[in-house]
């Protein structure tokens, strides 16, 4: 019997013939923490009397969630993490460098890697063919100390795509639609494996958007096979040597197969307060929006800023709708500056916040007021996620977000632009 992508990667990394349901111990290629989970990880590391990092050069500490620090509490956490990184020789990604998942895509992840991080959106690196999954601080402290971790080999749902997207419909609409179909726990413990000839239609930005949200259906990983798109991206990043061929076997065993015709999809919105509460954008047309947020590991890339700038060029945000834009990384920011996208957005009334998680998790840079509605390109709309349990978050694509910022209310971008 053939193997799924998850089984292939975990077989190679554990040196066993891994099948779904097995528990394997395997080496990790990259282990990381960020500034909300890192301090607890450091304490667990010390609690375990672990002497040192197994592989300091493959251990990264990201200061991205509360960055620059909004309070003395977070500032002290940053201090602790800087001291730990220095003492242990870990790689430190500083304030302003950007979101862990974006930097991992740019600099570290490749097909066949096992990546574990103290952050649930670690799954993002599945876009490049990595088995990448989030864990808590104890698990990550142990992976840092031993250079390995234990994993239950997940069963796999194959998501096979055909045809291509209609204009102004894209990867975010695809994944919101899929989460709506599966439910917020529909893929719990599972691997989502993307497949089909039409994958060629997804560039790496699209794939990162899709993989980042696999966890919103409960999945352990969301993995793409490697192909020419992966190869071209790694070459562009100067990491051509990281490319490996990675394909599932044709006789692999799947728990469930879903077939999705991309041409049938339309702009989607996830309504408060769960990600699976989705409907077509047209069905929530007219909901007044106080703040539009474009950014995050899901939709803060150069392709997002490019699309946003092109759609809003020569127009202004609605006077009652704040527009906050956060580039996902320093590289994204620099490229967007060079291409003029940032200037266009600022001229249209946007506020640009530094590269990082920004307004997504509600500790700074765009906390909502009581009763306010936000339309965000992020991945989570949980109650209180953006810092106020009395506010409401809608999730959508960058195209829907920018069209909404112009209109001041939720619109279907195909009708508005």
């Amino acid at each position: 019997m053939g193997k799924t992508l998850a089984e292939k990667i975990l077989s190679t990394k554990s040196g066993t013939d891994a099948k779904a349901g097995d528990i394997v111990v395997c080496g990790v290629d990259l282990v990381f923490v960020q500034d909300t989970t890192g301090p607890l990880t450091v304490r667990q590391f010390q609690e375990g009397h672990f002497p040192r990092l197994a592989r300091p050069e493959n251990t990264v500490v990201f200061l991205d969630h509360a960055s620059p620090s909004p309070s003395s509490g977070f500032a002290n956490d940053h201090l602790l993490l800087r001291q730990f990184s220095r003492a242990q020789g870990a790689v430190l990604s500083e304030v302003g460098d950007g979101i862990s998942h974006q930097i991992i895509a740019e600099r570290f992840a490749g097909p066949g890697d096992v990546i574990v991080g103290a952050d649930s959106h670690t799954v993002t690196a599945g876009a490049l063919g990595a088995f990448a999954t989030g864990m808590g601080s104890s698990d990550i402290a142990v992976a840092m100390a031993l250079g390995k971790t234990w994993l239950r080999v997940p069963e796999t749902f194959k998501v096979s795509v055909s045809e291509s997207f209609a204009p102004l419909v894209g990867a975010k609409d695809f994944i919101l639609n899929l989460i709506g179909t599966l439910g917020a726990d529909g893929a719990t413990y599972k691997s989502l494996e993307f497949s089909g000839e039409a994958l060629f239609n997804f560039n790496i930005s699209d794939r990162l958007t899709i993989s980042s949200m696999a966890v919103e259906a409960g999945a352990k990983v969301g993995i793409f096979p490697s192909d020419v798109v992966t190869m071209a991206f790694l070459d562009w990043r100067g990491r051509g040597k990281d490319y490996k061929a990675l394909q599932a076997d044709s006789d692999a065993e799947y728990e469930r197969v879903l077939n999705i015709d991309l041409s049938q999809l339309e702009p989607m919105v996830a309504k408060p307060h769960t990600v699976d509460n989705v409907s077509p954008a047209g069905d929530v047309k007219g909901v007044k929006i106080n703040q539009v947020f474009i950014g995050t590991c899901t939709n803060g890339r150069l392709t997002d800023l490019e699309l946003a700038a092109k759609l809003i060029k020569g127009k202004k945000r609605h006077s009652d709708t704040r527009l906050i834009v956060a580039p996902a990384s320093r590289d994204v920011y620099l490229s967007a500056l060079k291409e003029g996208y940032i200037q266009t957005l600022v001229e249209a009334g946007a506020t640009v916040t530094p590269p990082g998680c920004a307004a997504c998790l509600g500790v700074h840079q765009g906390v909502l007021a009581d009763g306010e509605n936000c339309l965000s390109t992020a991945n989570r709309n949980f109650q209180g996620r953006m810092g106020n349990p009395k506010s409401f978050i809608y999730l959508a694509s960058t195209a829907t977000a920018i069209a909404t910022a112009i209109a001041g209310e939720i619109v279907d971008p195909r009708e508005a632009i």
Partner: protein
Amino acid sequence: MKLQGRVFKFGANVDTDVIIPARYLNVSDPSELAKHVMEDADSSFVSKMKPGDIIMATTNFGCGSSREHAPLAIKAAGISCVVAKSFARIFLRNSINIGLPVLECEEAVDRTNPGDMLEIELEKGTIKNLSSGETFRAKAYPDFMLQLISAGGLIEYTKNKLKSAGKT
């Protein structure tokens, strides 16, 4: 070990932002975290619950972030056990790692009312509803996870392993 407590019941998809909001993530003292547990779902929860009480929920309890602060806050508040129809995977792993008892049992959730008294025997995986007299059996853990639980969590397990291998 026998646990006994009163049930506080919640619905589906109780996420980690509700269990402990991100604004408290720069706190790592468990007793401080405990003061804010479930705050965004029910601001009076902390004042109503007593040590030993039990959280019960339907599906996907603990979905969302990887923050270990979530099970730590629940444990430090004095909740003795969380019983749910299902758990999100990172939350389940984190709970076992830090020693918060969590049990999956659909039937018990369907047949328990808020305020009922439960008696739980972790080793046997039994959940007895003292208010109705019914007994339910929770889903068993894989052997490897049982080893982690009996070691007192992952950090202790690893510490012991390293010690016996002479590496610390």
